């Protein structure tokens, strides 16, 4: 087993709003191994992006990590000084965002923004930085890199801008790349190109990737490990095979039922009934309870503990507990 590069333990993040405290992440734990890909799936408001932003500490002003540990190579980055944190961001761990149209500063050239990242984290001169920027653009498959450096973001297409974001994120060859819905805002054909590019670069540079998405297709293609989030909690985590072929949480099962199959059969898609929970007013028990078809009485009362389903595969669902107890009951009788 390769080395753990990132170990998130019992992470809690909340936002202070006028309506009260929004607890977006409630005790999320996972770890990321060197050079591997981890997928975080969940619907809007499940806390997946907030988890990612908590790692980099780029939450908006009213948000803060309220508990837990984030260990990067064994060091708790939550205890970093602001200066150490700046060294972590962009150098050790970088991020690409969902919307490439708004993620680049409209008033500076591509070259300026790319070189800024390079100059921040390496001891290059301006000229060397320019050469490096050109090299990076070539690496991410941007044509005419010399001309692009002088252009402004609005002169480029969405796919091109996302490539530039990737180039910027890779400028100091980080250990971890967080991709926050990197393809959601792009056309399907461009999506595939961007994912391919990320995989290729991962092989070349050897960084670990955290892929935050609601798109199970993207996850299936990209990730070794998956965590499924709902209501700011992890409901299930395991290898891609575990999640896709042996889902052990009702929410995961629901998610899988709601993707269309491509084998030509016209099957009716089964959506998950109901709406996502209100994070301002978290239920006492399991967050998914109100939308779960097989909910038990205990689901309303108590939050299920994470339990081992099979080696490396964990789920937090009372139904598993029930099944196990019935199983052991039968075995006993």
């Amino acid at each position: 087993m390769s080395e753990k590069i990132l170990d998130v333990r019992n992470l809690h993040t909340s936002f202070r709003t006028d309506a009260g405290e929004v607890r977006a992440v409630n005790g999320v734990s996972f770890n990321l191994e060197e050079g591997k890909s981890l997928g975080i799936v969940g619907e809007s408001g499940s806390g997946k992006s907030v988890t990612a932003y908590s790692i980099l500490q780029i939450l908006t002003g009213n948000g803060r990590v309220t508990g837990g540990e984030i260990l990067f190579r064994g060091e708790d980055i939550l205890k970093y000084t602001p200066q150490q944190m700046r060294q972590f961001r962009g150098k050790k761990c970088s991020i690409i965002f969902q919307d490439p149209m708004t993620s680049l500063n409209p008033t500076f050239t591509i070259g300026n923004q790319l070189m800024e990242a390079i100059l921040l984290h390496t001891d290059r001169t301006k000229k060397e930085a320019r050469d490096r920027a050109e090299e990076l653009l070539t690496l991410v498959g941007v044509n005419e890199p010399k001309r692009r450096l002088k252009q402004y973001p609005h002169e480029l297409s969405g796919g091109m801008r996302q490539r530039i974001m990737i180039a910027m994120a890779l400028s100091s060859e980080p250990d971890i790349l967080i991709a926050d819905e990197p393809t959601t805002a792009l056309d399907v054909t461009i999506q595939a190109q961007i994912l391919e590019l990320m995989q290729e670069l991962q092989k070349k540079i050897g960084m670990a990737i955290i892929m935050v998405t609601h798109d199970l297709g993207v996850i299936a293609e990209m990730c070794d490990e998956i965590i499924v989030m709902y209501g700011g909690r992890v409901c299930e985590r395991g290898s891609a095979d575990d999640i896709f072929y042996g889902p052990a949480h009702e929410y995961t099962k629901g998610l899988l039922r709601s993707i269309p199959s491509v084998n030509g059969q016209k099957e009716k898609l089964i959506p998950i009934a109901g709406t996502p929970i209100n994070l301002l007013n978290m239920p006492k028990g399991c967050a998914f309870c109100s939308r779960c078809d097989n909910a038990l009485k205990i689901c309303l009362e108590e939050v299920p503990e994470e339990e081992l389903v099979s080696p490396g595969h964990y789920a937090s669902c009372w139904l598993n507990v029930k099944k196990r107890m019935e199983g052991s009951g039968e075995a006993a009788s």
Partner: protein
Amino acid sequence: MARYVCKRVLLAIVTVFIITLITFFTMNAIPGGPFNSEKASSPQVRAALEKRYNLDKPLPEQYILYMGGLFQGDMGISTKTGRDIRQTITESFKVSAKIGGLAALLATIVGVIMGSIAALRRNTVIDRLIVFFSTLSTAVPSFVLATLLLYFFCIRLDWISVWDTENQNIILPVIALALYPTAYITRLTKTSMLDVLNQDYIRTARAKGVARPKVIFKHALRNALIPVITYVGPMLAYILTGSMVVESIFTIGGLGSKFVTGITNRDYPMIMGTTIFLAVLMVTMNLISDIVYKIVDPRITFD
């Protein structure tokens, strides 16, 4: 770019031309004329005066004669004082521009700084204080403020003499003129800064590991200043031509007071001269602010 500037300059000339037309005919349409506000003068004297100023000719001819002179740089002489209009405007503009320029500079610098502080320290005591003072400043009319300033600094505290023929102190008029634009720019900067700070590219800059001061001064401020620039251009034109109110309270012989006395005296050449000067200044400032706008925001395209 060059083509755009040419087009705008041509348009500006047309605009100014139309303004001269409207001003000339409305000015003549108002009851009264340059020489009938005086104590009754003999008809012969009046006729001679009117002949001298071409007032005996039909209106269209008067207009053509005036415009002809204007193209040669001759703005005529005052019907009131008999002094050359161009010289009068140049002299009084120097006074107004000095005070106005300082006021505009003060308003822009203080406004941007205060606005940024209010945005960065949002919902703190500092923010509340800044918002309070900027609201107060927008509400207080300049003649009230000017009078209060005079009262406190010149009479109660006696720091500055009320009036000095040699070395007129310009601090108080500058403050009186600057207060409103300062408050406006403060509020504009605050709103725009708050909006910019929530943009995705600010998050990108933070995620890159850029230090906070650089995030604010490089990435945020440039974008936040775009709306401020659109305000500063026309404001500069207004403020440079002087305020009648502030100028009369502080007894400064600026352009603002010349304009108003010109109108009350029906001093036709003076009204035309000051209006044209103001129009040209306004149109130029608008053009300049549009060009600066383009430099700051590359997304703006001309044509």
